[in-house]
């Protein structure tokens, strides 16, 4: 069997190369998969750093902020009373209110920290509701 394989590998160099590549890829993907699974702490990590693509609802969910409170925070930062009628990424909301995304996220971080300091029940680990 070993010899048969060796002969075949010599006769079909291109397919053999693809075969070798597939073997390597199997090992690499397998190891990466196991590593990510090992580092994935249950329960799922909440409190994700805020990024421009996230919507206010997503941030509220991730940081355990009640939605009315989140809307109040957004109103304070943007200076607008009414939330937009459709979901928007923070990037767009910042743009619409004439701020940079980074400045907006900074302001949001501070508001969230203040809220959590004032409401310790929302500041710790929690089961998902």
């Amino acid at each position, binding site marked *: 069997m070993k010899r048969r394989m060796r002969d*075949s590998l010599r006769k079909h160099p291109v397919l053999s190369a693809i075969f070798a590549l*597939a073997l390597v890829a*199997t090992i690499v993907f397998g190891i990466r*998969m196991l590593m990510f699974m090992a580092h*994935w702490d249950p329960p*799922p990590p909440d409190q994700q750093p805020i990024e421009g693509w996230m*919507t206010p609802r997503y941030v509220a*969910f991730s940081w355990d902020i009640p939605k009315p409170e989140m809307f109040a925070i957004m109103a304070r930062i943007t200076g607008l009373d009414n939330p937009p009628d*459709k979901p928007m990424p923070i990037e767009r909301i910042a743009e619409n209110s004439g701020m940079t995304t980074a400045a907006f996220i900074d302001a949001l971080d501070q508001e969230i920290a203040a809220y959590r300091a004032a409401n310790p029940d929302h500041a710790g680990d929690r089961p998902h509701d």
Partner: protein
Amino acid sequence: MTESFFTLITDYGVWIILASTYLSCLLVPIPSSMMMLAGGALVSVGDLVLWQVVLAAYGGAVLGDQSGFAIGQRASGLLARLTSDKPKRKALYTRAQKVVETSGGTGVFFSTWLFAPLGPWINIAAGAAKMGWLRFSLWDAAGELVWVSIYVGLGYSFATSLSSIAEIASNAIGFVTAALIAVVLGRWLLRRGT
């Protein structure tokens, strides 16, 4: 990079999900699985509506597969002409058609989700090898339902750990696909060695 795709979803809604699953079935490199995960996550926080996300992802995927199949069908005439006066090539083409006849259905089914990176190629190959349209469509529709349900479901369930779940899922898909290629090629090489 992926983040800018997410911004597109929150900006334009489910149409972006439809476009990305459609294009990814035609080999355009768009992280459509990430888009479905994000769609599921945005459903769970209340920004998007579940049936719309599912319908968009599913519609895009099925239409994309149909397009790939149609491209393959176009190519089949060309293949027949190219192989007609070359007995060796003709035999190869006939054999490919036989494989499609015997195991094409399950092949299409699994290529839509478990071995997703092979999906676009399999659709074209199925069309080129003259697989029946109805048979292709039924297996494909069933497979895409699995694909969409898994990813939107994962996004919904693990809304706040999108990037971890995406890493695990994409590596798992890469693992099984590479393993499949290695096994199939390995067996073929072993048999050829005699």
